[in-house]
């Protein structure tokens, strides 16, 4: 090759490399947000974009095999541990399932001893209105306070240094079937809290409390007249089916919206540039669809609201007139990414109904919706009208058993959150592969008792594996790689800058896999199934730590914590039939595990 052609070649190579670098860094991922200091983890999603991505890279593919337990901590509560440990500076905060004890651990001392403990003493009867184990999804830190929700409907702010209660506000009423299990989020000095109880015929809402005083600033219901739902002149939904007045009343039989569910027990994201919060609403009640004809607004959908006033900006309904308990409370990851070559501000969601949605987060338009698991309940999502097209053969009817509905009621993925790595551009989704038989029946409404009306039994979907970990490329709209798991995955995922992804299995294995290939790099067997959210932080000594709570439970693990009887296939809302072997594989637990590389 002559000098001239070599230089041309070299120029082209350099250009190509430059473009590759630019293309990779085109993956800015989340928009510019108020980042927490690198080593902290101040909210369960780590940031307002809900990426659950740790920028720490001390632990990486070449040394993770040496990862070992640094310390453990017994929470004293052997129920489903769904929380994410919160770390600020040299203190770690963990909140337990009922009775919702809040522990502060001093990370600066060896063994991370307890610094203080706050016991809120929630009402024990609240355990009777918690559909899916008495879980709590985590605390949040804000300006010197740690804020938690308790099962009986209180939101409490505790001084982060002393553990003394600063304020306590009661928002939920267990006699109506309400409880609170979600992790609060603090946006612009307001604590956002939503209720649980869609299986108890409650009316769902989201409320904002002043973070300093605990006083109610605004409260928006998710069913009912527009003035309750805070739908006003700013409301500009993208699709025609969401336009109209008082749709939260008109799309229900009379009074049914008052007991119609649409709760907020999952995740909230925030975009500081657009100044919008995004959260999903739960399923309509009851599960028996014949008792609530109509589209059942504003259930199973996504709201964008103004965080200062609560006024709604747009709404999109993933599963109108939901037939299968497809709540829409999953996490919304806010990304800036190319869609058909054009860079856009999007919101991506591995949705419960089995589709991976990419949406314009300014307008609510659905840009794409692709199944990320086996799907026969919904044929496709029509992008023009926005409607999910239901499969007529998979519509449950009273008095009959409809079989092999996929995905089952927990969906292709339930609450357990996925993570995103800007380095790979992949969304890491821990999820499940279950189908179900369903027989709805007329259900009586009695406040404080379940309002469901369906007998359901679940079992493994095609392939026989009940769990699956998918690395999904939202740009190409295809999976990059997949790991099949025997048991369903009910834990969250953590992505790190060391190009590792962490997740836990229901029989207790905590795993680290390569972020690019999915190859298993390390695993450790904890003492109970893992359904919590792993986090990573920089300790006071500068090392990177990975922390996760171990303790099986939740809706998926009900057979263990409730000691349910597998002879009843409908026990545990159908879960007992899906995991009848779980009692043999794990017992209950409640221990925090923190891992690090040897010094």
């Amino acid at each position, binding site marked *: 090759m002559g000098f001239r052609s070599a230089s041309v070649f070299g120029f082209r190579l350099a250009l190509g490399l430059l473009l590759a670098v630019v293309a990779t860094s085109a993956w800015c991922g989340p928009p510019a947000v108020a980042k927490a200091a690198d080593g902290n983890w101040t909210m369960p999603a780590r940031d307002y974009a809900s990426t659950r991505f740790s920028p720490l890279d001390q632990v990486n593919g070449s040394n993770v095999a040496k990862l070992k337990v640094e310390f453990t901590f017994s929470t004293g509560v052997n129920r489903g541990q769904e929380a994410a440990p919160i770390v600020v500076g040299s203190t770690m905060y963990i909140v337990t399932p009922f009775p919702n004890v809040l522990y502060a651990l001093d990370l600066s001392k060896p063994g991370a001893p307890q610094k203080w403990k706050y016991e809120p003493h929630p009402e024990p009867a609240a355990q009777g209105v918690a559909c899916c184990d008495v879980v709590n999804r985590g605390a949040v830190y804000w300006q010197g306070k740690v804020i938690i929700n308790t099962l009986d409907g209180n939101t409490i702010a505790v001084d982060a240094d002393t553990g003394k209660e600063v304020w306590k506000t009661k928002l939920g009423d267990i006699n109506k079937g309400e409880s609170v299990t979600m992790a609060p989020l603090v946006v612009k000095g307001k604590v956002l809290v939503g209720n649980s109880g869609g299986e108890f015929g409650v009316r769902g809402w989201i409320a904002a409390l002043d973070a300093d005083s605990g006083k109610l600033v605004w409260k928006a219901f998710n069913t009912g007249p527009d003035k309750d739902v805070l739908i006003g002149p700013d409301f500009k939904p993208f699709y025609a089916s969401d336009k109209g007045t008082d749709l939260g009343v008109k799309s229900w039989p009379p009074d049914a919206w008052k007991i119609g569910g649409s709760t907020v027990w999952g995740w909230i994201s925030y975009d500081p540039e657009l100044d919008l919060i995004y959260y999903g609403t739960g399923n309509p009640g009851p599960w028996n669809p014949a008792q609530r004809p109509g589209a059942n607004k504003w259930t199973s959908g996504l709201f964008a609201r103004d965080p200062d006033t609560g006024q709604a900006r747009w709404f999109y309904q993933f599963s109108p007139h939901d037939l299968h308990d497809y709540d829409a409370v999953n996490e919304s990851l806010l990304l800036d990414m190319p869609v058909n070559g054009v860079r856009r501000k999007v919101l991506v969601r591995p949705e419960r109904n089995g589709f991976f949605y990419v949406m314009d987060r300014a307008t609510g338009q659905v840009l794409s919706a692709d199944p990320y698991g086996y799907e026969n309940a919904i044929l496709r999502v029509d992008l023009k009208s926005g409607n999910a097209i239901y499969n007529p053969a998979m519509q449950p009817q009273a008095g009959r058993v409809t079989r092999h509905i996929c995905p089952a009621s927990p969906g292709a993925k339930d609450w357990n959150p996925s993570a995103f790595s800007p380095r790979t551009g992949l969304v890491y989704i821990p999820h499940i592969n279950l189908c179900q038989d369903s027989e709805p029946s007329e259900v009586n409404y009695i406040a404080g008792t379940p309002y469901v009306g369906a007998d359901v039994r679940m079992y493994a979907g095609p392939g026989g594996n009940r769990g699956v970990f998918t690395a999904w490329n939202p740009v190409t709209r295809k999976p990059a790689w997949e790991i099949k798991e025997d048991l369903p995955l009910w834990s969250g995922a953590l992505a790190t800058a060391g190009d590792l992804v962490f997740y836990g299995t229901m029989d207790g294995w905590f795993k680290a896999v390569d972020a690019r290939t999915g190859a298993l790099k390390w695993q450790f067997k904890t003492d109970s199934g893992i359904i919590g959210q792993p986090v990573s932080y920089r300790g006071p000594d500068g090392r990177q730590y990975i922390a996760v709570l171990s303790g099986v439970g939740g809706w998926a693990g009900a057979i263990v914590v409730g000691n349910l009887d597998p002879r009843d296939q409908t*026990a545990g809302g159908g879960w007992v039939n899906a995991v009848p072997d779980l009692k043999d594989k794990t017992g*209950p637990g409640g221990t925090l595990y923190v891992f690090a590389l040897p010094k």
Partner: protein
Amino acid sequence: MSSRFRSDVASIVVVALTLAALLGGCERERREYHSSPTATAQPHPRLSTLQPGDMLSAPMDPVGLHFENNAYHITQGGRLYRWFNCNGCHANGGGSIGPALMDAQWRYGGRIDQIHASILEGRPNGMPSWRGKMTDQQAWQLSAYIRALSGNVRKDAAPSRREGMRATPPPTRIPSQPPRSGDDSAQTVPAP
């Protein structure tokens, strides 16, 4: 014997057997539709086997025994089990939010009068209190049905398979599981 005599005997035997079969079907059990509308005070069953000093014996309320051997009351209990949303927390006996009712483990006692007390009084960790919301007879009927779920009623009184999704073996096929102690499920009940 002459054929005439034989046919007479035969016809007498046939008539007698038919009468016996017919009469045996009469009044197989009493059905009380009508229960006293006044509120009656129930004795509280003991929930603990620990008694200070010597054991005082107390006979179980015979009302309970009557309900748990009566097929009508058990099937009425099965109807009420869905009407009052018991299946919402306890599924079809396997449990869900509430514990399983078809096994031998009982946190608060598995005799019919103890179950009756649990329903009406409620229990601290989430069982609602139904006193004043259902009649005493309904509570006994429900208790009888719950006893049937664990196979603890006579097999000719137990209801057969349910219409609809056959998710559990019918109570006639569940083996009898008398309530037993050493209830490990109570360990997961946290202190308030």
